[in-house]
């Protein structure tokens, strides 16, 4: 009897162990979906936690905006969840949207993806134009339209835009025998990207081989394309990148610059490119305000104050993000309130003064944080005024759902090859082949 009892006792233990293992496994699987519950429900102090899914350095936290909001709303707790690169963030976001799970209370959407999200996922987002305290007139019209569906639902509120200028190194320009005053520099290439390349040749003649005129072929072609009204799609939504002369011209001009050795053979935002900033190896970079933040982060301290900002040959927009509130969130009302606050002109101005993200709300351009904006790297250059001037000239560009794929193909499978010794024609063929294969459903 004793043996029997011990046996059955052991059996119970074994069964319990198996059961708990099984339960653990199943719970482990279920946990993935429930993560949001645990993080977004109230914590022990009874606060409501709002989660934000962001990419890159959007700077809300760094600029102290969360702290400020939590102080204004003591029952709110804000947590952000940041993915380094949008290329990794966006596929996950799409996946979460289509399965309607794993979404944060607030999700950021990059301008390169906004057209696709508007076209295919709009029903998953709250219409922010109906949220309390949102005024359409606060935003630049084209920025507002980018996130608005044909039916008039606005799925995200704009945070920043990227009015593009050219940042240049005054010390390198001086060494190369070029003017250093920002108005004179702007005049060197005003109105024409060809003149920009000509200036590059002059730079190279003067400065020799140690440094390059520009940072990367990807940066150059992107800058030229950003200043076009139409690039990869026409207003009717058709893919026109192959037949649009503006795209081919931009490609050829970039290839020419690469052949002449004016741009370094680098891919932007990769470690090797970071190193070239740190080693001061190039004289110009296409430069929306947020780029100054990148330059500052990657530079040696002795580069401070050596940069200045000139107008781009043609103004364009590079970058900008929207904050949307998915309908499936646990705290939709609170999240909408937070997004409304974060994107209000006052907060956009603060974000500019701390992080250099340029406001998408024109009302902010008159605020002292913008008009008096300065950056360590550019010394006492009035960057707020300079970029505001660029912002006024930005064309209303047609954005297509697959812009990112086309752009990436032109850069990573195209112009970069010219810096490696391929002919412009081969590079173009390679890019087109890749892009067409990637676009084909």
């Amino acid at each position, binding site marked *: *009897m004793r*043996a*029997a009892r*011990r*046996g*059955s006792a*052991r*059996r119970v233990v074994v069964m319990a162990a*198996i059961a708990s*293992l*099984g339960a653990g*496994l199943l719970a482990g699987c279920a946990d993935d979906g429930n993560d949001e519950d645990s993080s977004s429900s109230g914590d022990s102090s009874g606060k409501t936690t709002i989660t934000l899914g962001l990419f890159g350095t959007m700077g809300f936290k760094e600029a102290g905006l969360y702290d400020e909001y939590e102080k204004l709303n003591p029952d709110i707790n804000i947590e952000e969840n940041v993915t380094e*690169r949008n*290329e990794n963030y966006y*596929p996950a976001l*799409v*996946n979460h949207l*289509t*399965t309607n799970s794993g979404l944060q209370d607030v999700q950021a959407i990059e301008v390169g993806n906004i057209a*696709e999200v508007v076209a*295919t*996922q709009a029903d998953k987002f709250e219409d922010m134009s109906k949220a309390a305290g949102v005024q359409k007139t606060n935003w630049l019209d084209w920025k507002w339209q980018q996130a608005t569906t044909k039916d008039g639902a606005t799925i995200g509120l704009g945070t920043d835009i990227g009015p593009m200028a050219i940042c240049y190194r005054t010390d390198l320009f001086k060494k190369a025998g070029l003017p250093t005053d920002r108005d004179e520099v702007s005049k060197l290439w005003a109105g024409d990207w060809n003149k920009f390349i000509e200036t590059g040749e002059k730079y190279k003649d003067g400065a020799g081989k140690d440094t390059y005129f520009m940072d990367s072929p990807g940066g150059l072609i992107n800058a030229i394309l950003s200043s076009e009204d139409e690039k990869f799609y026409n207003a009717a939504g058709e893919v026109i990148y192959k037949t649009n002369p503006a795209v081919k011209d931009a490609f050829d001009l970039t290839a020419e610059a690469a052949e002449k050795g004016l741009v370094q053979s680098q*891919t932007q935002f*990769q*470690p*090797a490119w970071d*190193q*070239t900033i740190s080693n001061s190896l190039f004289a110009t970079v296409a430069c929306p305000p947020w780029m100054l933040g990148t330059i500052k982060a990657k530079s040696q301290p002795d580069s401070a104050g050596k940069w200045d900002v000139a107008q781009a040959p043609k103004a364009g927009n590079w970058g900008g993000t929207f904050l949307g509130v998915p309908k499936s969130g646990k705290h939709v009302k609170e999240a909408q309130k937070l997004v409304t606050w974060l994107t209000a002109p006052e907060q956009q101005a603060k974000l500019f003064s701390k992080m250099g993200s340029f406001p998408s709300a024109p009302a902010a351009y008159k605020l002292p944080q913008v008009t008096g904006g300065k950056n360590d790297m550019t010394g006492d250059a009035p960057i707020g005024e300079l970029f505001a001037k660029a912002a006024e000239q930005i064309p209303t560009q047609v954005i297509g759902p697959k812009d990112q*794929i086309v752009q*990436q193909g032109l*850069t*990573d*499978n195209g112009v*970069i*090859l010219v810096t*490696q010794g391929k002919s412009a024609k081969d590079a173009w063929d*390679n890019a087109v082949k*890749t892009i067409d*294969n*990637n*676009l*084909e*459903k």
Partner: protein
Amino acid sequence: MTTRHDTAASPVKGGAAPGRPPGGRASAEADRRKRAKLSRRWQRDMRWSPYAFVSPFFLLFLAFGLFPLIYTGWASLHTVELTAPTDMQWTGLDNYTRIFDDEFFWNAAKNTLWIGVISTVPQLLMAMGLAHILNYKLRASTFYRVVMLAPYATSIAAASLVFVLLFGRDYGMINWVLDMVGLDKIDWQNGSWSSKFAVSTIVIWRWTGYNALIYLAAMQAIPQDLYESAALDGASRWRQFIHVTLPSLRPTILFTVVVSTIGASQVFGEPLLFDANKGASGGSQHQFQTLGLYLYEQGWVNQHLGRASAIAWAMFLILIVIGILNAVISRRLRASS
């Protein structure tokens, strides 16, 4: 399981063991029924419990293995985008037939094959050599074994990122060394062969120790007297290796070849992280895009789920062919030995 004494053996009447309290006819009947019931439960237990015990794996496999497999097959017959996975348009075998004309697919297949060959062959040869050396009596042999397994325990991501730094064109350590000894720098990422070589290096680094340990375990199972008699016959170490070790290891070698081949046909993380552009195209000219990477690019970057599913099934079929080839070859080898 332990034996159920109460049902397996009936109490002996009048035996040394204390008997049950004497009861009437009714209680004996109840006792019989109780025992019969227990017996039926016992039989049911015997019959069904094993299925219950193995069921967790199969339930999980159904949910996370078989269902996705079948669903992928279904999706591969449709045009379907990741942005709207429920919106499927029937296209029949279109996704498969276009693979025949898809130069990117065949380029990826070729890359996968070459990366597989230049990583698997040296990897297994080196593993064999290492295992042979470790099979000698060594001080601190456990230490060496642990060290050998360390790369395998490292995450692919971490390892690949380190290798990306080593193989960097402008600031990489390998090019720095090449430069020091007066050789030209190599643009590892952009060369057709140099990039494949670099990706293979990551694979080799990770898996050599793992295979070496498998070989070592098999070597240690070889009876010592075989070596002793070989030594008595005057066989050198090398002859012993050829005539004693290798034949005894044949099944193990076959196993590692099969496993490495499957692994090589699925190479994904290393080329993904090796790309300087951080895209999924495996280099600007797709020079090191493997099938796994192409599948990922179609499905997750370009969001064409239908095409990606067809590629996944094509890969699956290729793997089955490779598996059959392996089986045939190993049967031939076994027959010849």
